[in-house]
Structure formats: structure tokens, C-alpha cells
């Protein structure tokens, strides 16, 4: 409690705006830029954090073999003990929501596919894939689900541009939404 009392006159002296937040407790240290880089694996839907790299569906098919993805997900992305990776066959014009809860088809953004392969695959060796292998596997899964052409090169620029079938058909939280309020206007429950 001593710290803020001492700090206040100092701030006034320096003419710091009262609006600026300042640390109250001074506990914890500043991570180095290198530490932040090493820990930060988040990828936004707009892809700012994507590392440079590239891959195609053909290369991805090879990685799928080499990394034994088939062992859990099946030789063709289905039939294994792990979740299937290939959409249900509902015809060309089917509602994307009817194609299954399958990441490379339901996700509104291709970045989420890249992110999950990068952070969560393969089982027991998560985080071991190279950047190019992740781009290649993403391209392979998007190709076999009919989202991109076979020869499409995915890289840090093209990946966020991929138009997923669900891009416009999911609902974000409404603008009026706030925590601690009735959940929905006119909804008495």
C-alpha cells in the first residue's frame, strides 16, 4: 500500500496524464521479445501472426503419410479412431452446417485449421511440425474437402484469403450483448 502513495506525487511532478494506467503493485517482470515470440502461437482470423512459409495439397498428402496421420484419422481422412477430417457427402449445394463438425469444412476461417494443426498435431508430438508442413497439411485438408483447388499455394498471405463455405453463415455475439445482463431481450428465461 505504500507504493501508490509514493507514486502519486511523482506522477503529478512528471505531469503524467491522470488517464494513463500505471502498475499498482509492481509484481512480475517484463518478458523479453524473444520470450513473447516463443510463447505466442495465437493466429487471428485475419492472419497477422502467420509465419512466412508455403505448402500445397500434394505436399500435404505426402506429409499426411510421413507423419502417420492415417494411423488415427484413417487413410482417407475417415474411418480412424480420431475425428474424421472429410466432410459428409451432402451434394454440392448443401448447407455447410450439414457437412459435419469437421474443422477444415465448418471453420469460417482457414487460419483456425492452420492454428489447430500447428498447436495440436500430431498426437504425442504436438508442435513438432515445421511451418511448411502445417501450410501443406492445411492445403491438403482444404483440397480434399473441396474448398481450394489442388494446385493452390497456401502461404501467410493467401491462407487468410481462403473463402471457407461457412465464412458468412455463423453468428458472432450481437452488438448489444453484455455479461451479467438478461441473456436476450424479450427472452424471459
Amino acid at each position, binding site marked *: 500500500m505504500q507504493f501508490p502513495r509514493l507514486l502519486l506525487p511523482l506522477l503529478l511532478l512528471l505531469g503524467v496524464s491522470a488517464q494513463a494506467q500505471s502498475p499498482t503493485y509492481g509484481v512480475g517482470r517484463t518478458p523479453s521479445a524473444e520470450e513473447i515470440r516463443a510463447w505466442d502461437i495465437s493466429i487471428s482470423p485475419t492472419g497477422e501472426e502467420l509465419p512466412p512459409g508455403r505448402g500445397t495439397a500434394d505436399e500435404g498428402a505426402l506429409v499426411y503419410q510421413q507423419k502417420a496421420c492415417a494411423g488415427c484419422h484413417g487413410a482417407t481422412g475417415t474411418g480412424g479412431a480420431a475425428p474424421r477430417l472429410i466432410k459428409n457427402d451432402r451434394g454440392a449445394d448443401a448447407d455447410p452446417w450439414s457437412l459435419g463438425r469437421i474443422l477444415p469444412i465448418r471453420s469460417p476461417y482457414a487460419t*483456425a485449421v492452420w492454428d489447430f494443426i500447428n498447436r495440436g498435431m500430431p498426437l504425442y508430438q504436438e508442435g513438432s511440425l515445421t511451418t511448411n508442413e502445417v501450410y501443406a497439411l492445411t492445403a491438403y485438408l482444404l483440397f480434399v474437402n473441396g474448398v481450394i483447388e489442388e494446385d493452390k499455394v497456401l502461404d501467410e498471405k493467401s491462407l487468410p484469403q481462403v473463402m471457407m463455405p461457412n465464412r458468412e453463415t455463423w453468428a458472432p455475439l450481437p452488438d448489444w450483448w453484455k*455479461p451479467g445482463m438478461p441473456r436476450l431481450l424479450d427472452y424471459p*428465461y
Partner: protein
Amino acid sequence: MSLKRSDRREFLKRGAALAGGLGLAAAKPALGQTPAAGGIITGSPELVAYGTRSRFVTSERIAHGGRASPDAFGLDFHIASPIQDSVGVITPSSLHYVGTTRGAFVPEIDPQEHRLMIHGMVDRPLIFTMEELKRLPSVTRLHFIECAGNRANRNHTTVQETHGMTSCAEWTGVLLSTLLNEAGVQEGGNWIVAEGVEEVKGASSIPMAKAMEDCMICYGMNGEAVRPQQGFPLRMLAPGFEGILSVKWLRRIKVVDQFYMTYNDYGHLRQDSDDAALSMQIGPKSVITYPSGGQQLPGTGFFEVSGLAWSGGGKVSRVEVSTDGGRNWIDAEIRGTAHPMAHTRFSFQWNWDGAACELQSRCTDELGSVQPTRAQIGEFWAARGQPPRIKGQDNSIQPWRIDRDGSVHNAIS
């Protein structure tokens, strides 16, 4: 414990009066203590160090939702708490429900090595050791956590199956707002992404308004360290919101400008905005835990009907019970204090006359929202030209049918 002589006399006098008043004076004198039927529990250094429950108490968690835990890969997925056996409002840490991203191994984390990083759209990125976090001002609060998968259906038989994916504990930690204020959130930092350290690095997006309001970074649970299955040594707690936001084994919080659509987020996407709005916060909800599905009343007579009520909207303000399938409702008693976003025990004094009947409970929260029947939810959406399904988190009323033989059954039709 020594009573003064006068106190003791008073105590004995009152005891005798009480016994007389209850007409027990002629009953067998409670002089000798009955020897334990099974002998004694042999002492051991282990039992001295850390106690265990009686071997006669066999209440257990079960895998939930049709997927084995551990599964073929050894991953834990969803594990339901035996709330049919619960008393009071605290779920023992050993029986707290478990949910994980995709299925996960429980990581073995040395708290000495564990760090929490806060970075992204902040003025001062920070990294904390566990020791440093424990130096900061702490809060201790009762909160439930409930999985979005806690949805009852007609095929369930017990309350563990219909409602076992919710639990309530006393949580201790630092308010997330304390840490975010230390770091200084920048203009436009509208969301956070919270991430765990487990092999799949499970991450969830949380709106900044919620993060600043009441989210906690917890290291304590029910008077001791958070259990490994609950995120040891550190977990997020987003009170009253779907459980997947309460990220376990927390290692990193990134302040960002938008909804990040992580794997966790993707799995909970909704097709329309009403559904999305109803999906974050748990509505007013309650369930009778005794008598509940699969249990057996031994005969007619007096029973204390008992259950749990909770709401993501704040405190439980009222619980009603119906014994005639929802036609008439009578106020139940709230046992103890109703805490915001915490399980609240209710009870109802009841004489069963032996006739077939249907028990239900209905919760009202401090926002004035009332727990609906499944039919009411259907009618609400049908009136708006939408499919009559339960949108968002399922907070519908649970009916239990009691047959004339005293058997209790799930009455969802």
C-alpha cells in the same frame, strides 16, 4: 473442550427437556456407544498425512456424453459429477466434473517452473511466477462451472447423466482485472485469448467486458491447491459462463482486437445471433437431486426434497417446487446463503402419499429470469417462426416421475 460446571448443568437440563419434549424419554437409553460393525480403520502414515472417505461411500464420477474417458488414446474428455449424492453446495475436488479440449492428457506441471504471461495489446507485457501471483491481492468466491454439454435428454436415466456436468467449488485467486490493469490494456483491446499449457494448448476467446468484470485466475480450490484435473497450478474462471472459457493449466493471456476463433471457439459456433447470445451465460437453472432418476423411495411418508439451483446471471433469488407436474408451484427453502453464480441448495418438506406424481423445480435469478420448461422454450421460438429447439445453454426444467412403487424416472418426453 471443558464446560464450566454451571454451563454443563444448563446443557444437561436443556438436553433432558428436549428429549422429554420429543417423547423419547421412554426410548432405549443412549448410554453405551455401539461398536463399529467392521472394526477400526487401521491408522497409517498416509491416512495421517491426507485423509480419505469411508469405504462405505462409493459415489463416483462417470464418463459423459457417450465417449469413454480415458478414451482409446488415453485422453480424458467429459466426466460427470455424481450430483445425486451431493449434499450442501460444494463439490468435493475429487468429484468435480471434468471437461477438456478435444480430449486431453492431464499435464504434470511443476509449479516452480510454471509461468503466466500477459501480452498483446497492453502497455506492459508481464510474466508472473506462481509465487508472484500469490503476492497479489486475492479473492475467494464460491462459483459453479458448467459445461455447455450439460444438456438433458429423454435417454438419460440419472441426474448424473442429465446434469452431472456442473460443479461448484470455493475458488481462490487473483482477479483477472488486477493483472490486466497491471499490464495496462490498450485502446481496442476488446477480447482476450486464454491458453493452457497442455499438449494441445487449448485456448478460448473471452470478451474484455467479462474479463474485466469478474474473471479470476485461480490457484486455490476448496481450501487447497487446484487439482491437476482442474488445471493445477493455475486456471481461468469465467463465472457463470460456459465452462470451456475457464481455461485450465493457464500459461498465457493475449489481449487482442477481435474474436480469435480458436479451436475451442469454433466448436461452439452458432448459426444465429440469438443462439450466440444465449450460449455464453448460463440461464437460471435447477434440478432436484433427491429424489432423482434411478433412485427408490422406500415408502410413503415424509421426505425432504432437495436440489441445486444456479444461474450465470447472478444470485438465485427463488426456487419453487411442483409435485404435480408443473400445475402448482410452492416456494422451496433456500439453504444457507445464495452466492452469485454459485450452486445454491434448496429443500422442500414433502409427504408422499403413495400416488404416482411428477416432481419439478424452477429457479428464478436476481435478474428476474425464470427457468423455463422445455415446452415453453419450444413455444417461444415457434411463435417467432423458428424451430422449437433449446437454443444456447440448456436451462430447462427437469421432470422426475415417481411411480406408485416409489421408483423415480426421467420424465422428459
